[in-house]
């Protein structure tokens, strides 16, 4: 069968594709999953280990290291960071060239991602725009804002950036990696992260004549993140709504898009509770005799300050005079990546309220999936701001509710994927504009009036477009299987104009690398001067050191010679003197003896 290279940003994406990977391995495909970055904080690597143990056809590893990752690029622009640097690589060396191209690539991609949020479709998406803006070096921000003022400006600027993207050569290490893997198909996900470098895999696949496809991981990917800057041969989406987004917002040709359904939710269709309601309620600390509402937490971007809102919501429920609402139990389920803030929650002060699982629980631990399912299954309504747990609730058949709140305007009206949820647009959630309205809606659910049947149409159109009984994992793996069997496309070598433009574009790449430091412009004048002065200082120091060494050695030698000369001469003098003294003494003694003899003779 065929060999597939699946490039993921980090192991967290395995959560979306584990069933699909098993299905592909089961169909006889060899799949190598390569992660661009490592992430283990929520136990994501455990899934990789489990899958690798389950099938020898599934292998996992890292992608080749880049000269400059997006994280490095952003870290270089951090004005507050304190770090010592090395001497840096020479710009003309291979490493230096690759770093420069990486910098240019990341700059262009971040600019394109920022630019897309000026489109009239995103008029209300100020938070998304701000998030994209934060990643763009300051110097470009005004330029983009000015260029994006008109439709023509946006188009011209985007076309210029796309042209630069076409000139940037694919990364050599990545090309070598893809060549070494010899895949029949390259899959990438998510590709639309802000500034994502996965573009290079698509470019390498094109160049090497390998078919490529983007697997859209989640329901908000095409509207709340970056752009598909280089369109792969195929795009696999969940449903028709995403297909429209891919075509209208990303410029993908309709025939390149395949709808597969949301395979990550398949297990929800097959799941059954393992405990009774009484057991479950007792475990989480709720009264089994009362119905309960499940509040599902949202991610950090959607609800950075969710706790005060949830407490207001609880207070409104408990204060409500709508029958049944005040006495209903409430189970709060924090978002696993946004759970910490619930440590400050005052929810325990309300009666009949439980926060579960406790903050800090491993979301991929044993039994956690079953716990999650049961918390939805035994609830009579699910409330949340804007989160994928609401989709899961729709699968289980529970009515879904949300409340518009001013503090979450950026995440509700300000995001396009919220429109999929809102019932007014044919979505599944009943949206209330006040707590009073919300209490009335909840009362209906608590009394069994809203069974969640309204969500069935949504589930069919949004999560299982090929039929409620058709497993999306099977559709997805068949689609991949089909793509892998297609004849490989022709190798697309770079055109003459891209080759011709590469040398001048390299100047641009060096400039992009310098500007990515996000420093004030005057530093480009002073920094080389300072570097020169420091280099001269270093040279001077070494010269002084060398001179000092030479002078020191010579003087030592001379000193030694002088000392020796002096020493030897003084020794010689001493010797001579000693001899002379000896002679004198001998003479004196001889004279004395003679005198004594003379004296003795004269006495006799």
């Amino acid at each position, binding site marked *: 069968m065929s060999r597939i290279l699946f490039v993921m940003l980090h192991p967290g994406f395995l959560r979306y594709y584990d069933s699909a990977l098993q299905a592909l391995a089961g169909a006889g495909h060899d799949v190598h999953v390569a992660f661009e970055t490592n992430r283990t904080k929520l136990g994501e690597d455990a899934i990789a280990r489990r899958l690798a143990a389950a099938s020898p056809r599934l292998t996992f590893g890292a992608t080749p290291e880049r000269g400059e990752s997006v994280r490095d690029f952003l870290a270089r622009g951090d*004005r507050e960071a*304190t*770090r*010592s*640097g*090395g*001497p840096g690589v020479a710009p003309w060396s291979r490493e230096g060239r690759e770093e420069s191209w990486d910098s240019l690539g990341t700059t262009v991609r971040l600019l394109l991602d920022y630019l897309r949020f000026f489109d009239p479709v995103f008029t209300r998406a100020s938070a998304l725009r701000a998030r994209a803006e934060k990643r763009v070096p300051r110097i470009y921000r005004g330029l983009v804002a000015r260029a994006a003022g008109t439709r023509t400006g946006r188009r011209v600027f985007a076309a210029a950036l796309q042209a630069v993207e076409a000139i940037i050569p694919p990364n050599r290490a990545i090309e070598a990696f893809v060549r070494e893997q010899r895949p029949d198909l390259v899959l990438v996900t998510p590709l639309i992260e802000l500034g994502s470098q996965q573009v290079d895999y698509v470019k390498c696949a094109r160049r090497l004549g390998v078919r490529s496809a983007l697997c859209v991981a989640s329901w908000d990917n095409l509207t709340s993140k970056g752009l598909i800057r280089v369109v792969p041969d195929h795009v696999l989406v969940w449903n028709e709504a995403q297909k429209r987004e891919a075509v209208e917002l990303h410029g993908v040709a309709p025939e390149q898009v395949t709808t597969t359904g949301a395979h990550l939710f398949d297990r929800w269709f097959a799941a059954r509770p393992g405990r009774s309601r009484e057991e479950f309620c007792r475990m989480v600390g709720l009264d089994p005799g009362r119905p309960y509402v499940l509040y599902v937490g949202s991610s950090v971007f959607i609800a950075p300050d969710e*706790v*005060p809102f949830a*407490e*207001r919501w609880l*207070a*409104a429920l*408990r*204060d*409500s005079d709508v029958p049944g609402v005040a006495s209903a139990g409430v189970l709060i389920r924090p978002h696993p990546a946004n759970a*910490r*803030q619930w*440590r*400050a*929650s*005052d929810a325990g*002060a*309300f009666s009949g309220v439980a926060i579960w699982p406790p*903050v800090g629980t491993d979301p991929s631990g044993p039994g956690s999936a079953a716990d999650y399912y049961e918390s939805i299954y035994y609830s009579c309504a699910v409330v949340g701001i804007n989160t994928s747990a609401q989709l899961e609730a729709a699968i289980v058949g529970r009515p879904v509710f949300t*409340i*518009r*709140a*001013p503090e979450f*305007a950026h995440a509700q009206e300000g995001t396009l994927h919220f429109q999929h949820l809102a019932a007014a647009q044919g979505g599944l959630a009943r949206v209330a*504009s*006040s*707590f*009073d309205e919300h209490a009335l809606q909840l009362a209906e659910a608590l009394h069994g009036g809203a069974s969640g049947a309204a969500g069935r149409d949504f589930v069919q159109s949004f999560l299982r477009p090929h039929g409620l009984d058709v497993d999306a994992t099977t559709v997805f793996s068949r689609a991949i299987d089909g793509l892998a069997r297609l004849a490989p496309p022709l190798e697309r070598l770079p055109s003459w104009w891209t080759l011709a433009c590469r040398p001048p574009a390299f100047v641009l790449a060096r400039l992009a690398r310098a500007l990515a430091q996000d*420093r*004030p412009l005057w*530093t480009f004048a*002073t*920094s080389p001067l*300072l*570097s020169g002065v*420091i280099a001269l*200082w*270093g040279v001077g*120091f*070494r010269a002084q*050191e060398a001179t000092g060494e030479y002078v020191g050695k010579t003087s030592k030698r001379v000193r030694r010679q002088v000392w020796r000369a002096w020493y030897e001469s003084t020794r010689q003098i001493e010797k001579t003197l000693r001899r002379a003294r000896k002679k004198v003494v001998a003479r004196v003694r001889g004279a004395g003896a003679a005198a004594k003899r003379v004296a003795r003779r004269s006495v006799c």
Partner: protein
Amino acid sequence: MGISHGVHAALASFWRECYRDLRRHSGNERLPYPVRTALRDMADRTHQRCAAAEVRAIAPRLNRLAIRTAATATLSAGETRRAQECAAALGITEAQPIVVVETLSRPDLWAPALAVLRDEGYQVVRLRAPGLTDPRLPAVIDVATDTPDAPLLERHLVARSAFVVCTSSEGQSAAYAAGTPSLRLDARDPITAYPIRSNGIYTLATVIDLDTGHVLGISELLTARYFRNSRNCGYRPTGAEEIAAAVAEMIDGVRHGWRDTDAQARFRRAVADAGVALASQVRDVIEWDASGGFVGDGRLARVQAERAR
């Protein structure tokens, strides 16, 4: 921002960039070791200069001493008449004293305090922000803040109010401007929200370390570590009993004059001392003009000050 602040900001930027360059070169192993050591020392000195310039570049948001002695703003006779008509249309009677509250998002926390206010004969007027989803409360008069007359009506109500209950610095400032006593709830640190005038009281939110779930004591909130690490903290609102006690203290102060307990006076001294000590380390202290030794004549609510001992 004044010119001198701008100059200091430019200087801070200059020193910061020099520091970055020096740090970068000090890690260059091609340079002789003594040169790198000297560069590192220079970088440290540059960083100190940068920090000093950054402190000088901070433009204070307010002048505590000026606010303490500032005259109160009043409405003209015509404006007052128009505002009175708007108030009457909303059912606010002139004969009965009022208390303006900025928000009442947690009826459960407010119920005892509202009972105290009602028992003491006050009308409670809530300034309701546009788009707010908070529940409507019985015996609380809502005033929308997005109507054309709202700014005038707000000023009138704040000026007429026996005292203002607020959760933001804007609400506190409006009370200062009108010379109205204020009760600021759920302040997130003891320094920036400290009431300037003697007719002000505030309460502190309960601060939780989000890593450990540990509740920070009030004395821990007067350290540089807390200010630097505030992103790692969560806040629990002031409890119902404490709000009711603080409201009762306000009513007592309005009627019988403002007196400090020993605990309140001690806490004020501790905050003022902390302001001086933290001036060079914490941006907020300078920004909120608490570095000069004067933090305000107001006080922490008695119920919390006793706990802070």
